[in-house]
């Protein structure tokens, strides 16, 4: 007893040192923690920092060139001539490129003029420069501060009009078009359709016509139609409070909008929606089946050699690579079941497949299969933790096995089931490889849920946060430009998974303490 206390307290100093290996072992823990912290910090700073409207530099070079942009990074010049700095100058329509390397020794003056504007545009990316004049379709030309105020007011109006168009399209145009397709040319439908189209066209016309005269810092002029402009700000003239508001607005738009410019700009809303829907469908499938299998293995099956073997087998399936499940999903669900379903029910649309190609249903089934071992193992652990006297007590009071299970055992195992489900969800949310085989899409602007019968379209392809990262980071035209958004998406995915895992850890802890106290009496 004394020895134990002596060892645990760790206060007694041993005569000799522990030698070098002990320090290397300690160092490996610190190194892992350091790497993890670095990774999370990198994601957090780069992902969240992207939305901060940082100041725009106006740079005059020794050869007289002027440019404006945001400094991104520095790198040493060859032959030790100092550093060179990368500026993101945007203005793709003027320069053909959005990056500019500038040797730092060549910089003559560096300033942050308050009148520099940054416009976010639908085409050509952002514009950095000066606002010269505002030319509305009706009304008079304005310049200077008046032009800026007019632009702000117009942009707010444009936002409302865009919303109105999107609503009309969602609520009126698309259902009418579908009805036209389904019921044939009914005069009333056609009339309603032309009416809606006319309203949309009128809104579009109301948006068009206004023009901005812009000037880049080196004096090149540009006529910019205002309906292409999504947002405008003057970061150098903004205080910290205004910047914080703009930052929050940027984060919100990232979360709530769809992607633009081949996934290199815009938001990730369809990907968030697709991920959540996929995971929800998966847990709907996996929880009942996993619990069923666990109950069978632990409560019903004869506890012999075979059951033990099956248990080991199920446990090992959790270690089978996810891509193998993807292959199974593609071969059995997509080509096998999907092909059959197409032949039976959707023959008229063949050869273009309905269920015979990857889609939401097959992806969620594949993920359910992938996470089934997780749920089975977690539930079984919970069931095994319940003391046998609880079961015996229930049986002794005259309960049948079903009553014993449903009234005594399963309620006690609920936290274990929840833990299993959350672990399954956390695992599924991060899996991308199998989805690449069974139905994730690079770009699927149509969310799989809409107002059209049957409301949930299981055959549609969907977007996914993880695949969005892969696609934007590796298949874009300008990876450097897409990097901030990839960081932000990665941060979002990691946060979702961390929250899910923390919930599971908390639940498991809760479960242990509860049953720890239970087995004592």
């Amino acid at each position: 007893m004394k020895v134990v206390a002596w060892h645990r307290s760790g206060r007694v100093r041993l005569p000799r040192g522990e030698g070098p290996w002990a320090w290397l072992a300690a160092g490996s823990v610190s190194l892992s923690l350091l790497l993890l912290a670095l990774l999370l910090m990198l994601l957090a700073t780069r992902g969240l920092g992207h939305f901060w409207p940082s100041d725009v530099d106006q740079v005059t070079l020794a050869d007289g060139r002027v440019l404006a942009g945001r400094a991104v990074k520095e790198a040493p010049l060859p032959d030790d001539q100092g550093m060179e700095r990368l500026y993101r100058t945007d203005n793709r329509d003027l320069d053909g490129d959005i990056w500019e390397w500038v040797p730092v020794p060549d910089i003559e003056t560096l300033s942050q003029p308050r009148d520099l504007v940054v416009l976010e545009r639908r085409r050509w990316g952002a514009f950095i420069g000066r606002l010269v004049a505002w030319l509305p379709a009706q009304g008079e030309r304005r310049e200077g501060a008046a032009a800026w105020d007019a632009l702000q007011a117009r942009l707010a109006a444009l936002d409302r009009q865009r919303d109105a168009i999107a609503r009309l399209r969602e609520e009126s145009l698309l259902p009418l078009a579908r009805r036209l397709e389904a019921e044939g040319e009914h005069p009333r439908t056609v009339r309603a359709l032309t009416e809606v189209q006319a309203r949309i066209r009128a809104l579009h016309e109301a948006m068009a016509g206004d023009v901005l005269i812009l000037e880049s810092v080196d004096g090149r002029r540009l006529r910019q139609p205002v309906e292409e402009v999504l947002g405008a700000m003057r970061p150098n003239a903004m205080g910290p409070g205004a910047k914080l508001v703009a930052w929050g607005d940027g984060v919100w738009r990232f979360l709530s909008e769809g992607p633009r410019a081949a996934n290199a700009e815009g938001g990730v809303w369809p990907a968030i929606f697709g991920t959540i829907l996929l995971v929800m469908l998966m847990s709907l499938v996996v929880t009942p089946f996993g619990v069923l299998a666990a109950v069978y293995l632990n409560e019903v099956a004869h506890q012999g050699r075979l059951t033990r073997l099956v248990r080991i087998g199920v446990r090992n399936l959790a270690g089978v690579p996810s891509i193998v499940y993807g292959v199974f999903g593609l071969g059995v669900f997509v080509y096998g079941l999907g092909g059959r379903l197409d032949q039976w029910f959707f023959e008229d649309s063949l050869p273009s497949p309905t269920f015979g190609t990857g889609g939401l249903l097959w992806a969620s089934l594949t993920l359910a299969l992938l996470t089934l071992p997780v749920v089975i193992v977690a539930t079984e652990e919970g069931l095994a933790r319940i003391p046998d006297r609880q079961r015996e007590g229930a049986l002794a009071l005259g309960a049948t096995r079903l009553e014993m299970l449903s009234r005594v055992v399963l309620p006690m195992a609920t936290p274990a089931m929840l833990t299993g489900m959350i672990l399954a969800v956390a695992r599924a949310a991060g899996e991308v490889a199998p989805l690449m085989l069974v139905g994730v899409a690079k770009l699927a602007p149509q969310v799989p849920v809409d107002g059209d019968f049957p409301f949930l379209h299981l055959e549609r392809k969907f977007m996914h946060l993880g695949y969005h990262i892969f696609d934007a980071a590796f298949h874009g035209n300008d990876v450097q430009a897409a990097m901030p958004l990839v960081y932000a998406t990665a941060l979002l995915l990691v946060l979702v998974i961390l929250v899910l895992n923390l919930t599971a850890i908390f639940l498991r802890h809760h479960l242990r303490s509860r049953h720890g106290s239970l087995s004592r009496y």
Partner: protein
Amino acid sequence: MPKSSSSPLLRRRLRQGRDRLATALITAGGIGVIAAVMAIGVFLVVEVLPLFWSGSPEAPQVDLDALWQPQTYPGLEAPVHRWQPALPDSDPGPRFGMAPLAWGTLEAAAWSLVIAVPLALGAAAHSALFMSRRLRAHLKPTLELMEALPGVVIGFLAGLVLAPWLERHLGLGLTLLLLLPPGLVVGGALWSRLPARIRRWLPLGWSALWLVPWLLLLWALARWLAPGVEGWWFGGDLRGWLAATLGLDYTNRNAIIVGMAMGFAVMPSIYALAEDALSGVPSSLSEGAQALGATRWQTLWRVVLPAAGPGVFSAVMIGAGRAVGETMIVLMASGNTALMTASPFDGLRSMAASIAIELPEAAPGGTHYRLLLLAALLLFIFTFLVNTLAEVVRTRLRRRYRRLGVSS
């Protein structure tokens, strides 16, 4: 009422009937679910078999030699291994040599184990023997979170952040590698020279935390030393030296990058299992050794590790299984070039990555499709065997501990 008089019997019948029905349903459902999960292996075998038996025109037979031996292709002189499934059918025809894929898979797994095993075992040894209990209770969930980091995120950081960084700072990377182990040992030596009052503020049990600033200091030192090291030994240009002296071309995304990223991903699972095995050793053993005057490290090396050896081995096996099947990290960090070179600075292409890229484009039922399924089958068999082995070893070990615990 007749209902009340006959009800006890009827009710019992009803309850028993319901019970039997439910038991039958649970049995059927449970067996069905388990069969569905197990069907993966069956499906893969059934789909792959035609490669070796049937000779139907759309899926011609493939002989094993052609898959695994170097082949002579028209236009090339010596026999080579090639995996080029997408070549047009007309002239050269697709080239199916599985060897580069298998090589890439094993190479990636081997490098990731080289990184992960020392880190994980060191961490496990430290947290089982030296670490304070409070810190340990926090460390385990933290590393569990690290295990849950999705492969895409790690792959993205490895392929687009780490790879370009290391390419630019190769000298710094090498200096860090050379400096860290001796730096840690020097840190330990300095610590033992400290006055006892300060040492009580920095106990060994919390060294995992207070060594982090020391590591940062070492990193700063490495940054300062790196140009000197590169200039002194490698003529100022490590990449050029590698190419000129060793004949190794440094590719941007290479096996080392994959190894680092996947090592980071695999390390927590090895750690968790190895730590379980080490801390599961009955404390009577280690207390006996320490009572006889052994230091804690000697106890670990001579007593605990031999007792927990099988458990540590199974932890490494499970790590190997994960590394072999990990898809996204390899896909994003390896460059995906199907090469068969031993150079750690060349790219590689693993089976899992090949499946992910090529299977959606392969025509179902064709040779390419079936070969990719064969790759999946190999992955399945390998991981299943490795995991089973690890599980069996672990169960044996647990039984042994129980015996040891009882006999003491």
